């Protein structure tokens, strides 16, 4: 049995009907009708009335039931539909089958990988077609920050991109940024229509990506939203944690402004618990709280000298100061301790502020660095020095001035009972890195000051807020939390995803709808017809290289480093998408063509998840006879055989695999298969096929003709 209740219901009903046990025609008819409606649900072709129709059919069944057995069947059906109501509804609303049992509804791997569940194949197709504003509209159904994420997302989607099994993944991230920028400059980047104010008010604590996302969706749903922000700026970590050369401030401002346009009120320089209290807000009529305070407190290095010297900085604080306008170099020789993105950001920022020498000290080797490899590469290009396998021991100096960082070389050793490689000091491996500034970037944690008001809320041993991840609901009724405050330091897209989830949960809470048991699976909003192109184009489109700012400029200014693809590059890149929301890569087509037809024209190595072999769409036309058996057996109609403009075209998700000339019936003009196809048939029938009739005729005309020959050629009227 499948996991999916919808699928199970289908199986149950068809077995029931086939078994012949429904001897009462009414009962059988009702089951047939329910089966039909359920099929539409499982194919994403259902509307909101489907479940109502099914309900009334079940009622009719129960009243019509003529026997105990039928009555039981009716009860079973009733349970199937009431017991898993949510699943049926989500199939209808989201056109997704989380468990992939309803083949036609399986979402694409990239969309499944996205913590915010963005409908990636759809917007890539729109971008490929040049419909940027539409693409942004699709993205913003799940993420109000297409532009921001287009520049700094950690892009798990690209990691799952099926295209990478052919060559390289589609650079999904940046295409978003391009579409946002283009739509914005054309004035086509707009907010969707929001609902009338429903009289309810929500307070969001923290104007970071999580908080702003929740605010965006809540105000669209008609809630009044007030955001409390301790800083003088909005954006949280994306504003004060991510340097401008990666994410220009204007980008953040424009997208935040759009959220403010919805009527979201942000009070800056307001720290919850100090400048405003839980009670104040309650009195203002706040119905629910959403805590998205992030993780802004840095961990201590815990080495000698850390507390003595003023020039021992923590990366987070350092980056924040810079972001808020302090543009003085911290010193001449800067050492950053850590191996994550924050460390890299701090180092590159220090460099840009005029530090003469910047180095990064990291306990392990390069390929263990958690930071994005691109970040590391770029840092190296800019002249940041890396000191790997380096364990900081002590900060040296005198009279409050740092002179250097005393380190010890380490080697990676696998310790007993652990499968992790641990850095172990090499005796006598001491050395000193000269420095007048030391910046620690070894991680942050949640700053819980001011949170006392939420007395019933629980904290984890990690110092994060404990929530039920399906609803982001804390132990305290009406109080929700998300983002780094819940996960600990994590990605922007996760914060956005959880913010959206929280918004939905808060809406449910305030409309007294029970919360879901599991986090919602990504939603496919609609299915765009795929972009049409030749197999050659599909195969030869190459990932464009990202043009970069020249290194001198990078070492001296905060200008954006990645300059972005040009329009042609973007449209092409979007066209590389394989549309995995349509083709589930089940391989049935290959199997039919190779094993059943014995033609083996389909070279789709990428479809074999476990051992991918070479893929070449262009190879299809070498052997394919456009018989259409692959299409006839494609559950999702990803593979189609169309007869158009005198050609028989075989297409996989819009990619033209083969095109052969249609033959026509010489008698009635009806379409016939291609010459290649007829050769295939002729080869099979061999020399037997010496037809009396040499004209090309369709099935019907052949019958007509042989009937006529019957009448006219046989000896008439022998008596």
């Amino acid at each position, binding site marked *: 049995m499948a996991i999916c209740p919808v699928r199970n219901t289908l199986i149950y009903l068809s077995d029931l009907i086939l078994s012949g046990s429904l001897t009462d025609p009414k009962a059988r008819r009702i089951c047939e009708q329910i089966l039909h409606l359920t099929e539409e649900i499982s194919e994403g072709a259902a509307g909101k009335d489907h479940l109502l129709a099914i309900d009334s059919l079940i009622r009719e069944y129960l009243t019509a039931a003529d026997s105990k057995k039928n009555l039981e069947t009716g009860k079973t059906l009733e349970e199937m539909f009431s017991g898993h109501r949510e699943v049926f509804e989500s199939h209808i609303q989201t056109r997704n089958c*989380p*468990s*992939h049992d309803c083949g036609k509804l*399986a979402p694409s*791997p990239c969309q*499944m*990988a*996205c*913590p915010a*569940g963005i409908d990636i194949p759809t917007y890539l197709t729109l971008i490929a077609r040049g419909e940027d504003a539409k693409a942004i509209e699709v993205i913003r159904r799940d993420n109000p920050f297409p532009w921001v994420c287009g520049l700094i997302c*950690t892009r*798990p989607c690209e*990691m*799952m991109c099926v295209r990478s099994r052919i060559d390289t993944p589609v650079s999904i991230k940046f295409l978003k940024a391009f579409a946002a920028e283009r739509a914005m400059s054309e004035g086509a980047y707009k907010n969707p229509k929001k609902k009338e104010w429903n009289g309810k008010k929500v307070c969001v604590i923290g104007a970071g990506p999580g908080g702003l996302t929740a605010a965006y969706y809540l105000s669209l749903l008609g809630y009044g939203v007030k955001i409390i922000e301790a800083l003088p700026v909005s954006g949280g970590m994306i504003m004060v944690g991510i340097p401008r050369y990666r994410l220009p401030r204007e980008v953040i401002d424009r997208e935040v402004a759009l959220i403010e346009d919805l009527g979201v009120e942000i009070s800056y320089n307001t720290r919850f618990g100090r400048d405003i209290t839980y009670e104040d807000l309650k009195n203002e009529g706040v119905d629910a709280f959403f805590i998205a305070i992030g993780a802004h407190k840095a*961990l201590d290095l815990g080495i000698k000298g850390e507390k003595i010297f003023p020039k021992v900085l923590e990366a987070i604080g350092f980056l924040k100061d810079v972001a808020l306008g302090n543009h003085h170099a911290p010193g001449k020789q800067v050492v950053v301790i*850590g*191996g*994550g*993105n*924050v*460390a890299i950001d701090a180092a590159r920022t220090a460099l840009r502020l005029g530090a003469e020498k910047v180095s990064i000290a990291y306990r*392990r080797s390069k*390929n*263990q660095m*958690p*930071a994005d490899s691109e970040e590391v590469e770029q840092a190296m290009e800019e002249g940041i020095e890396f000191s790997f396998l380096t364990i900081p021991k002590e900060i040296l100096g005198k009279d409050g001035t740092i002179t250097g960082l005393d380190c010890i070389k380490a080697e990676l050793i696998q310790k007993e009972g652990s*499968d*992790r*490689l641990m850095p172990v000091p090499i005796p006598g491996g001491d050395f000193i890195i000269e420095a007048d500034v030391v910046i620690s*970037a*070894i*991680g*942050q944690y949640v700053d819980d000051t001011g949170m006392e008001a939420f007395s019933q809320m629980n904290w*984890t*041993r*990690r110092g994060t807020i*404990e929530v*039920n*991840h*399906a609803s982001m609901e804390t132990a305290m009724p009406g109080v929700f939390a998300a983002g780094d405050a819940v*996960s*600990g*330091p*994590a*990605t922007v897209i*996760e914060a956005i*995803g959880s913010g959206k989830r929280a918004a939905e949960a808060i809406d449910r809470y305030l409309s007294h709808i029970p919360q879901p*048991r*599991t*986090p919602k*699976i*990504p939603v496919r909003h609609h299915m765009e017809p795929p972009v049409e192109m030749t197999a050659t184009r599909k195969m030869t489109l190459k990932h464009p290289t990202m043009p970069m700012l020249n290194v001198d400029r990078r070492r001296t200014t905060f200008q954006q480093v990645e300059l972005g693809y040009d329009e042609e590059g973007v449209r092409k890149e979007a066209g590389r998408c394989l549309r995995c929301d349509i083709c589930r890569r089940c391989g049935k087509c290959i199997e039919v063509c190779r094993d059943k037809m014995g033609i083996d024209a389909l070279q789709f190595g990428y479809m074999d998840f476990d051992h991918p072999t070479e893929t070449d769409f262009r190879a299809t036309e070498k052997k394919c006879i456009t018989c259409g058996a692959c299409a006839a057996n494609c559950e999702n109609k990803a593979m189609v055989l169309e007869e158009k403009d005198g050609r028989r075209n075989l297409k996989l998700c819009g990619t033209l695999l083969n095109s052969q000339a249609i033959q026509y019936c010489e008698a009635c003009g009806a379409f016939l298969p291609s010459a290649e196809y007829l050769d295939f048939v002729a080869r099979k029938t061999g020399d037997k096929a010496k037809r009396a009739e040499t004209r090309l005729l369709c099935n019907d005309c052949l019958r007509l003709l042989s009937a006529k020959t019957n009448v006219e050629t046989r000896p008439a009227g022998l008596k």
Partner: protein
Amino acid sequence: MQFQKGNKIKVCRKSEDESWEPYMDDFIGIHGFITDPDTSINDPDALIEVSLEGKGTHRLPQDCLEQIN
């Protein structure tokens, strides 16, 4: 062991960690990829981001994951 971005993994067991929620029981046996290890330090105790086939992307404790190839 220390997980890195792109590692192919399997949810091999129920985690002992407090962050494990009942709905995660459905994840056991499912394959996926590490999409974001702990971003700053390689903390074996940190929750890390994995994308699971058919289940979406979640942060899980590391003790329930094993690398596969």
